[in-house]
């Protein structure tokens, strides 16, 4: 199909789009196509039977619930961190700012064994809670902590630039109109950061949903209680059950795609307000 290119003045269109399409097809499209191909071998009835199997549904529940709680925890602390990092000068600020990306850089397996060692009955933190007869590792709480660790950078890094570039004049206008700092935060600053916050939340949620490496160490993997969806895929694979594994994988893929789509919609809608 002949694409009618409006601005052909800048060269390099063929080259750049060519490379882009080559990569996108080789790395994303062809592999994704394989998933669809493989799970279609299952047929619709097989697909629904697998996806709505009790244990798979339970794993969705565990995965979605823990990912949601982890992402929300990250929202609360992420906004606080972004606020503190962008508004106050205090000793150690640069070190804290530097550490935010650690979950990106640290391998998930390493995080997994470290968190498990930390929160299990004998670990530094775990022992403390064990005395209070509270188990963290091998429970959904453990999963949530691992997912919070994984998702932490997304929200801080989404909200921080917005706060840093926000013109202080809005807060001053709020103060002049007699609003208390809390009210100013709620009605002036929050709306400004909500789009970035939702984007960060979406990314953290999608990332946590698919996390495997760190979670299997701390989860305990008890069916119906702490077995996460990626583990279902893995265990179905280990039973040479490719069709069902890809079926579950496809539903996860669908969920993440919906989340990413919502993020894009939110971003474009928010841009409408800010047409300065």
């Amino acid at each position, binding site marked *: 199909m002949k694409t009618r290119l409006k601005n052909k003045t800048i060269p390099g269109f063929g080259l750049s789009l060519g490379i882009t399409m080559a990569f996108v097809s080789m790395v994303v499209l062809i592999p994704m196509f394989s998933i669809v191909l493989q799970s279609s071998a299952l047929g619709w009835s097989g697909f629904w039977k697998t996806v709505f199997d009790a244990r798979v549904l339970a794993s969705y529940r565990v995965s979605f619930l823990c990912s949601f709680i982890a992402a929300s925890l990250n929202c609360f602390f992420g906004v606080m961190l972004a606020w503190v990092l962008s508004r106050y000068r205090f000793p150690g600020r640069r070190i804290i700012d530097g550490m935010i990306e650690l979950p990106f850089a640290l391998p998930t397996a390493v995080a997994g064994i470290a968190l498990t060692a930390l929160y299990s009955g004998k670990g530094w933190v775990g022992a403390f809670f064990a005395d209070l007869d509270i188990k963290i590792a091998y429970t959904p709480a453990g999963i949530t902590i691992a997912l919070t660790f994984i998702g932490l950078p997304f929200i801080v890094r989404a909200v921080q630039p917005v706060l840093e570039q926000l*013109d202080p*004049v*809005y807060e*001053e*206008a*709020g*103060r*002049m*109109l*007699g*609003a*208390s700092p809390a*009210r100013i935060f709620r*009605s*002036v600053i929050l*709306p*400004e950061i909500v789009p970035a916050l939702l984007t960060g939340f979406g990314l953290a949620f999608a990332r946590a949903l698919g996390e495997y490496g760190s979670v299997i160490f701390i989860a305990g993997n008890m069916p119906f209680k702490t077995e996460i969806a990626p583990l279902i895929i893995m265990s179905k694979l280990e039973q040479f059950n490719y069709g069902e594994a890809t079926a579950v994988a496809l539903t996860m893929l669908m969920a993440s795609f919906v989340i990413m789509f919502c993020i894009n919609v939110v971003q474009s809608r928010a841009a*409408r*307000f*800010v*047409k*300065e």
Partner: protein
Amino acid sequence: MYVELRGINKHFGAYQASRDVSFGIEEGNLAALLGPSGSGKTTILRMIAGLESPDSGDIFIDGARVNDLPSSKRGIGFVFQNYALFRYMTVFDNIGFGLSVQKTPRAELAARVEELLRLIGMEGMERRYPAQLSGGQKQRVAFARALAPNPRLLLLDEPFAAIDAKVRQGLRSWLRGMISRLGLTSIFVTHDQAEAIEVADEIIVTNAGRVEQKGRPVELYKSPATPFVARFVGDSAPIGDIGRLKGFDGADADVSGVVSGAIRPEFIKIFAPGESVQCESAVEAAVVESVIFRGDALEVSLILKDTRLSARYPLEKETIAAGQKIRALVYCLYAFEGGRTRLLHNACLGRQHDAYSYSI
């Protein structure tokens, strides 16, 4: 004095924003803080509002010292330079924000907002978002928002800087009318002297952190207290050494050691070729550099004793052209004596001619 500043000093690091600033403003008065950018006028406004706190000195509103009062408790309405409307709130919510903070009942709030919308001539626009308004509309909403909680003092930071020229004129007179109708003590900051003269009851000229002069526009124009005010307010041409002009030379003028000064265009009278000349001894020879048509008169730029001056030349007189030699008489000028400014009349004119026409 309704608003009073006494001995205010403020510096940001090494930069001294306010040096011993003291002045007062009468209740119901509309005052302008006029000065070049960076002269500390905005800082003064922000200190009154409580957005900045002075290093030393006191601020009084309605007789009470407010230094320790937070901005929200000073009963001040503030209009920001680029409006600072809350982008995610409708016009209605923006205007009603101040009242909703005071927990005003819904109905009363709505009534007040509707009243204000009528006041600013924007009925029916409650549901709009700031991004959908023009610059002028945004400024009026910002004005209404500041007025909503019935402040006792209104502060405006360069309210028209961000508005394009032709809308600005209308907005200025609209604002002038609003404030005088409400009888609300107001202070606004501007770097545009025409705006200050046109809108304000009184003007406070600031320069490098100090108050140069405070007074009604006519006063500032006619009797500037300092060289800065003379040069800044109205047009004037600087004179290196006034002694070199006839009638102001050392001999009979009672000035000694006076060096520089400034001449306003209306201080100079240009004689058409062949026109009878008063006071022959004080007339100076000059060459016309350029002639610009200014609507009601011609603005003539001329070189007199190698200093460039500008003067007005009525249309009905015989036309003159660039390069033509003419004769001009300097009625009076501002003499700068050690930081103070004094109006000096041309000695040879004697007393009989003290009244001269001013065209503001």
